[in-house]
């Protein structure tokens, strides 16, 4: 059995009286590009910072690459790359000085890789960080993570606030690294388009809790849209869990998670898009005029948490 890259048990983090993360139990297998999706304040960054060793949980445990992560083990830090959403580079440094910083703090640093990446991106080594555009800063920050040659790459909204071209360049750089070195990647994002195009594992967080985590393929396979006329709504079939309900003027649509094979003729059944599934989970627990929440959050492979 392969060791999960991240394994948490009842992980929780509290800032003052506010819980940023609660009851977080999940396991992310190696070799995946996992997307961490959720609204602002859902606890994504808190989770990633704990995973990177920047913050300690209030309760619960977290193992990263099979080791307890508390930020004090240099050998574990060496195996994990972290890119913060604010891309905190040393503003007065030149790019080559940032690389020197990376080289001095990482025994596995590959300077040739770092130079090759920024060369491809058209960034000069003599440029000062504070003179670079936001996209270039993100690329330099990602290059530092990649040149460290980690086994696990944790990226907190790496493409946030980037224009489409910079975003494309950044994701291409990332995908090339994944293809070449088979690095496991966990990235948080608000761009649902990125989830389907570059990720193969999905973690959805809402209200400081993990509400879904599973292989992307299985997530799509295990959800269906059930529609019927609102005037004569049939009973829901067995083996489904309603995630979200939309009541229109003429019909009712349920997004359901299947826990048993669906044999049904009274409902009109269609396969939802990934965006529809994600949005349904993000609406869990929120009030909306057009949707009603019927169930608590499901855990992977059919259970109800």
């Amino acid at each position, binding site marked *: 059995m392969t060791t999960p890259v991240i394994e948490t048990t009842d992980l929780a983090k509290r800032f003052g009286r506010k819980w940023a993360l609660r009851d977080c139990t999940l396991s992310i297998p190696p070799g995946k590009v996992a997307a961490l999706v959720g609204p602002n304040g859902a606890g994504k960054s808190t989770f990633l910072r704990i995973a990177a060793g920047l913050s300690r949980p209030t309760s619960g445990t977290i193992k990263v690459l099979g080791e307890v992560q508390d930020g004090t083990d*240099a050998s574990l830090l060496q195996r994990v790359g972290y890119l913060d959403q604010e891309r*905190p580079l040393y*503003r007065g440094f030149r790019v080559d000085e940032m690389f020197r910083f990376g080289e*001095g703090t990482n025994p596995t640093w590959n300077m040739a890789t770092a130079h090759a990446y920024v060369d491809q991106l058209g960034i000069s080594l003599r440029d000062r960080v504070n003179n670079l555009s936001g996209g270039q800063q993100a690329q330099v920050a990602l290059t530092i993570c990649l040149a460290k040659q980690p086994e696990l790459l944790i990226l907190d909204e790496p493409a946030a606030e980037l224009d489409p071209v910079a975003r494309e360049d950044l994701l291409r750089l990332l995908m090339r690294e994944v293809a070449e070195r088979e690095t496991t990647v966990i990235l948080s994002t608000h761009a649902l388009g990125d989830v389907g195009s570059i990720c193969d594992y999905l973690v959805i967080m809402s209200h400081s809790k993990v509400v879904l985590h599973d292989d992307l393929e299985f997530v799509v396979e295990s959800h269906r849209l059930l529609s019927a006329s609102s005037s004569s709504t049939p009973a829901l079939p067995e083996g489904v869990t309603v995630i979200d309900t939309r009541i229109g003027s003429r019909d009712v649509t349920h997004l359901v998670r299947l826990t048993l094979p669906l044999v049904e003729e009274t409902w009109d059944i269609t396969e939802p898009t990934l965006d529809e599934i994600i949005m349904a989970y993000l609406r869990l627990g929120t009030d909306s005029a057009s949707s009603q929440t019927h169930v608590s959050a499901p855990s992977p492979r059919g259970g109800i948490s």
Partner: protein
Amino acid sequence: MTWMAWRLQRSVYLFALAVSLVLIGLTIANGLHLQMLLHHWRGAPCHGGNGFDPKYQRYCQSQLSNYIGARNSGLVVHLMAVVPAGVVGVVLGANLVAGELSQKTVRSAWTQSVTRKHWFATKVLVGLVSILVMAVPLCLTATWWLDASMWTPRISTNSMTYAGLLPAAVGVFAFALATAVGVILRRPGWAVAMALSVLLAVMWTMQFEVRPSLVPVHIAIIKPVVVTKGFQAGKVPTVAAPDNSWVLFSGFAPLHSANIIPSQSDEERWQGLEFGCETAAAAQQNEQAATASQVAHCQLKNGLQLEQLYVADNEYWKLQIREGGLYLVGATLLFSASLVLVRRSRA
């Protein structure tokens, strides 16, 4: 990592180093000028005011006033070691952790392949070496200047903190203090303000409350010299403490009192008793000045003696090492506390 620590403080430090070199140059120039003026005053024809020919009186007076004027106007120079060392210590310390916390660059630093302990220890070490490289020449120059200017005994309050080892120790303590305050406040600007305030309070306490108890205090009894004729008829107190000693107390105190510096209220009470003796004797004689024997008798009756409490000059280095050691112990404790906080701190 060492390069990184150096690179982050390089601009501030090089500026401070340049300022220090200018200060050293000015201090040496000022010291040489004072030495020259003192040489003129002490040499022929003035001989330091001893037995010069009256025809040189105007010349000698001008030599003396030149020396005193130059010395007084250069008194600020005695701060040239402790102030730069303290300020640089505070600025480097405030930026050591708080600068990175406020810029959030710790999120980069703490996720590389070095532990926070290693990161912190390297930065502290580089900061300490930098401060000492700057402070040691300043200490040597300030020590030389205080000696050359003949301003005050080196062990006196006006001189002790500003020369010898203490400016360097103060710089190290300031560095540790600002580091600890910065870790707590997480803002370098606030850390500088808070650390400077605390540093001044600590230095004041060390100078006036702690220092006198670090080395043995000696007592010298002043025997009145009776003058029976002339304008100053009465008693003329003489100084009993050895030359260049640090006089902590000079006044009336009970006979056989311990070598403990009296409190303000005790001092006033004993001064009042002595004043009573003077007044009573004067009233009895109906004269301006009381006779020495009457006053001495009254003092004996009240159990008082005129004394000086002092620390001798030969205790100078012992005092420097003990006070400097206290600053360094404080710095070590503050660095340890900072390390604990850094390891627990969230980025």
